[in-house]
């Protein structure tokens, strides 16, 4: 019995592994195309960043402290997302929920900081209608914020799924995709922090 059982589960296992790795590769390709989207928005921003039409530039508008706080918050959430994946691989459901919850809260805090910044810019008359520079700024940072929002919704549904049906093969695969997405958003933010905030704040 043992010998005949040894053959089939292995091939089934291999089949499933191959399906999983194909799904993960497909998601990786999606992330690469998303990078191209962000690159075109970065190019637009880089071209328009001095077109302020006499209005305020990055130096007057951006607070570097604030941007640093956003950066560290998102970076930490990327780290705790990694911890959630490690826990998922160890099949530790409570830890997965704990670290996903921490990641969610930090991502939510990041989104709150970003929306607060957008709000205070818009209220002070510096909305996207003010200049080409601000249009490009809101498009680039807003697109990133939209991705973060989608990631948070995905994370919320994953927490419900894991709490409900545990850490089966499919849920762990979904968690892996989610973590790829979340790490990717952090990498995009590094460039937003550097090119928009640091270079804007330094006035170069």
């Amino acid at each position: 019995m043992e010998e005949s059982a040894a053959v089939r589960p292995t091939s089934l296992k291999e089949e499933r592994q191959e399906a999983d790795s194909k799904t993960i590769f497909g998601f990786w390709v999606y992330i690469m195309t998303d990078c191209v989207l962000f690159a075109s928005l970065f190019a637009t921003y880089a071209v328009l960043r001095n077109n302020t039409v006499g209005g305020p530039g990055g130096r007057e508008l951006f607070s570097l402290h604030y941007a640093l706080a956003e950066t560290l918050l998102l970076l930490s959430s990327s780290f705790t997302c990694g911890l959630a994946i490690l826990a998922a691989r160890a099949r530790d459901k409570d830890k997965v929920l704990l670290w996903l919850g921490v990641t969610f809260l930090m991502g939510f805090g990041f989104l709150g900081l970003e929306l607060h910044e957008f709000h205070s810019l818009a209220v002070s008359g510096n909305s996207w209608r003010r200049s080409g520079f601000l249009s490009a700024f809101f498009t680039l940072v807003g697109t990133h914020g939209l991705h973060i929002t989608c990631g948070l919704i995905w994370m919320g549904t994953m927490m419900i799924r894991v709490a409900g049906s545990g850490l089966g093969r499919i849920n762990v695969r979904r968690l892996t995709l989610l973590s790829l997405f979340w790490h990717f958003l952090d990498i995009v933010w590094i460039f937003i922090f550097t090119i928009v905030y640091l270079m804007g704040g330094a006035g170069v």
Partner: protein
Amino acid sequence: MSQTAVKVKEGGSLRSYTTGFIISIGLTLIAYLLVTEHIFGGWGLVYAIVGLAVIQLFVQLLFFLHLGRGPNRRWNIVTLILMLIIVFIVVAGSLWIMHNLNYHMSPQQMNQYMRQQDGGI
């Protein structure tokens, strides 16, 4: 059985995540301090902070995304390189073309253009 079925995933350990996290924080703070402490300015500063961002990109690719491990490592890297080529063409090409347009525009044309823009708004 389902315990072993998910071993497909790329590697990654607590140590790799922690290493990546600490290096990333360090690189972020160095870039931040370079700007706030006004150690140097101009193009040198731009190259320095963009260079730090690119280093952090690779740190996170290695320690968070575990590039170069897992069953698809080869195709992951191939698509990554393809993406980097497209990104380079889009970004460098846009900057080059727009810089040339600015450069070849005479001040007279520029003033006329600005007046039209102001009138338009």
